[in-house]
C-alpha cells in the first residue's frame, strides 16, 4: 500500500506543477498545452479500458463529439447553461457506451474494433439527421468567457480524476479481473469472473470521460460543427498516442502525448502535407519496434540493467 500512496503523492505533485503552466508560458505554448492536456485526459481514460483488455477502442471520437455537441445544442438552441450541459452529456455518453458495450463486448475484440471504427461517422450522420429534421438549429454557438487558461485547468482537473480512477481500478477487483481477461479470457471465465460486465463497465467510463473532455473543449471552438466534433481522426490520435507511450501503464499516455504533440507541431510547420504519413509511420513504428510503447521499452531496459548488475 505504501507504494500506492507514493504514486498518488507523486501524481499530485505533478498536477500542481502542471497547474502553473498557464501562468508562465506565452499563449502559443499554452495552446499547445491545452491540446496536450486534452489528449492526456482522453488517452489515460482510454488506457483504463483498452490497456488491460487489449480491445482497441476507436470510439473516442464518437463520445467526444457527444459531449461537444450536446453542450453546443443545449447552449445555442435551448439557452441552457454550459455547466448543466457539461454535466449531462457525459451521462448520455455513459448510456451510449453501455449499449455499445453490451452489443459488442461479448464477442471477440475484432468485432469491437470494427464497430468503433465507423462509430463516429455513423453518429455524426445520425445526429445531423436529427438536427436537420427535428431540432432545426440556427448554428451552434458556444460563446463563453472562458480563456485558454480556464480550459487548461478544467482539462487538468479531468486528467487528474481519470488518473485517480485508473489507480483505483488497478487495485480493485475489476482491475484484477480485467488483467486476467487480457491475458486469457477463457481462464477468466472459468475462474468465475463476469467478463462481459467488467468490460462493459470500464468501457462506459471511457465514454464518460471522453464526452466530458469534449464538453469542456467546446467553448474553445466557439462554433460547433458536427463534422468537426465527431471526428474519426481524434479516435486515431488517441490510440496512437496511448500506444506510443505504452498502454500497459497508467502513465504511459503522458509519455506518449507530450513528445507526439511536439513532433506533430514541428511537422505541421515544416511539412504540413506530410502529417498523415507521419501518423502512418508512427503506427508502424509502434507495431514493429515498440509493441509495448516507450514505457515498455524503458521497463525492458531497466530490467536488463538490473539483471546486468547481479
Amino acid at each position, binding site marked *: 500500500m505504501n507504494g500506492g500512496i507514493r504514486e498518488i503523492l507523486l501524481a499530485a505533485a505533478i498536477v500542481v506543477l502542471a497547474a502553473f503552466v498557464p501562468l508562465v508560458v506565452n499563449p502559443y505554448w499554452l495552446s499547445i498545452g491545452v491540446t496536450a492536456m486534452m489528449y492526456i485526459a482522453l488517452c489515460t481514460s482510454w488506457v483504463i479500458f483498452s490497456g488491460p483488455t487489449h480491445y482497441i477502442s476507436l470510439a473516442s471520437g464518437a463520445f467526444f463529439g457527444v459531449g461537444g455537441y450536446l453542450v453546443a445544442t443545449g447552449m445555442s438552441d435551448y439557452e441552457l447553461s454550459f455547466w448543466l450541459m457539461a454535466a449531462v452529456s457525459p451521462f448520455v455518453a455513459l448510456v451510449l457506451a453501455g449499449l455499445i458495450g453490451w452489443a459488442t463486448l461479448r464477442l471477440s475484440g475484432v468485432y469491437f474494433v470494427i464497430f468503433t471504427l465507423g462509430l463516429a461517422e455513423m453518429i455524426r450522420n445520425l445526429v445531423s439527421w436529427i438536427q436537420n429534421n427535428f431540432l432545426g438549429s440556427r448554428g451552434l*454557438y458556444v460563446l463563453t468567457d472562458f480563456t485558454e487558461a480556464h480550459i487548461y485547468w478544467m482539462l487538468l482537473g479531468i486528467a487528474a480524476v481519470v488518473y485517480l480512477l485508473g489507480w483505483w481500478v488497478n487495485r480493485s477487483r475489476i482491475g484484477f479481473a480485467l488483467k486476467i481477461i487480457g491475458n486469457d479470457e477463457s481462464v477468466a471465465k472459468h475462474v468465475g469472473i463476469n467478463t462481459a460486465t467488467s468490460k462493459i463497465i470500464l468501457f462506459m467510463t471511457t465514454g464518460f470521460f471522453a464526452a466530458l473532455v469534449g464538453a469542456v473543449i467546446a467553448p474553445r471552438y*466557439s462554433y460547433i460543427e458536427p463534422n468537426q466534433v465527431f471526428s474519426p481522426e481524434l479516435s486515431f490520435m488517441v490510440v496512437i498516442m496511448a500506444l506510443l507511450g505504452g498502454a500497459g501503464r497508467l502513465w504511459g499516455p503522458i509519455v506518449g502525448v507530450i513528445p507526439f504533440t511536439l513532433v506533430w507541431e514541428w511537422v*505541421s510547420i515544416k511539412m504540413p502535407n506530410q502529417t498523415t504519413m507521419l501518423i502512418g509511420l508512427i503506427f508502424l513504428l509502434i507495431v514493429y519496434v515498440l509493441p509495448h510503447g516507450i514505457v515498455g521499452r524503458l521497463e525492458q531496459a531497466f530490467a536488463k540493467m538490473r539483471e546486468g548488475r547481479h
Partner: protein
Amino acid sequence: MKRRTTLKMVAAATLAGTMSMATAAFAAETIKIGAVAPKTGPLAGGATVTQWPNVELWANQVNEAGGLNVGGTKMMVEIIEYDDKTNPGEHIKAANRLINQDKANFIVAPYGTGFNIAAAPIYGKAGYPMVAVSAITDKMDTLTAKFPNLFFTLGTTTSFVEGVKEILVEQRDAGKIGNRVAMVNVADAFGIELSNVAREMFVEAGFELVYDKSYPLGTPDLSPVMKGAKAANPDAFVAWSYPPDTFGLAKQAIIEDLDVSVYYSAVATSFPAYFGANGSKIDNVLGAGGTNVDDPKIAAYRKAHEEVTGKTADYWASANTYAALEVLGQAIEGAGTLDRDAVTDYIKNNSFDTVMGELNFEDNVSYKFWTVGQWQDGVFRGVKGVNVDGAVPVRLKNGWK
C-alpha cells in the same frame, strides 16, 4: 509552412531603392501579415479557389506598387502562411503561433464561418482586426458585440436565402413556375442553418415543399436524392450544398434530366470548374454569389488575378476576399501606423475604394454583396444582391443538354 512570397519583390525593390534615395530602414522593415487557412482537408478545395490566390494577388499588387505607405515610409508586405488542415484545433494553434512566435502585424481573416468564429477570441484578445469574408451568420450583432475587432462583408444567412426566395416569388408571380419546390441540404452546420431559414421563408411565401431531405457531408452517391426530388414533380429545385455535393448533384440532375425551370445549388456553383466539368449543360443554373463582369474594376481585377496567380477567380467570394484585403491595406495607410487599435478604428469609421465599389462598415458590417448568380452562356453573372449594380434578369432553365 512559411513562404516568403515577397522575398523576390523585396530584393528587387531593395536594388532599385539603393540606386535612388534609400533609407537604411527600407529594406529591413516589412509588414508581416499572417494567413491561416486550409490547404488540406475538406475545405481545402474551396480555399484554394477563393482564399489563397487572392492573398497572393494582393501581396503582389501591393509590393509592385512599392508597398504600403505607413506614415510616410513605404513598407512591403510579407505573407506568413499556415495550413490549418480544416481543423479548428490546428487553426487555434497556428493563430497563436502567428501572434506569439511570428509576431505578425496583421492577419488575413480565416476561411469558413466556423474558423472565423473560433479564431475571433484569439485575435480579439490580441487586438487584430479581422475583416472576414467567408463568414455567413445571422448572429452578427452578438458576435460583433463580443468581438469588436471582427468585421463581416458577405451578408447574413437570411439575406443569403432571401435572394433565392425573391427569384422564386418573381417567377411564380410571372406565371413561369408553380409553387412546388424540392429542397435538399447538406446536413452540416451551414446547410442545416440555411435550410431552416429557407423552410420558414418559402412556406410563408406560399410555396409547397414537395421534397425536403438532407444528406451527410461527403455522401458519394447522390442519385437517390435526385431521384427522390424528381419523383416529387417539382417546379423548382433548391440545394443548400457544399462543393462536393454541388458538383455531384449537377451530375445527377443531368442523368435524371430533372425537369425544373429554376435550379439552384449553393456553394461552389460559382467556381469556374463547375462550368468546366459540365459545360453548356449547366446553363441557366443558379448559384450562391455572382459578380458583375462588365464592371471595369471587376474586369481588371479578374484579369490581374489570372495573370498573377494563373487561376481564374471564382464568381463570388473571390472579389470580396480581395476587397477585404484592400480594406486592410487602405486602413493601414489611412491610419498611418502599424498600431492595430488605430487600424481597427479606421476600418470602423471610414469608407474604402475597392473592386466591389465603395465599402463602409455600419456596426462592423458591410452591406455590399451578391447573393445569387446565374450561369449565362459560360459566365456566372449576378442576378440578386444587396447594394450592388449590374444585376441581369433571371433566365429559366430549359433542359440539361
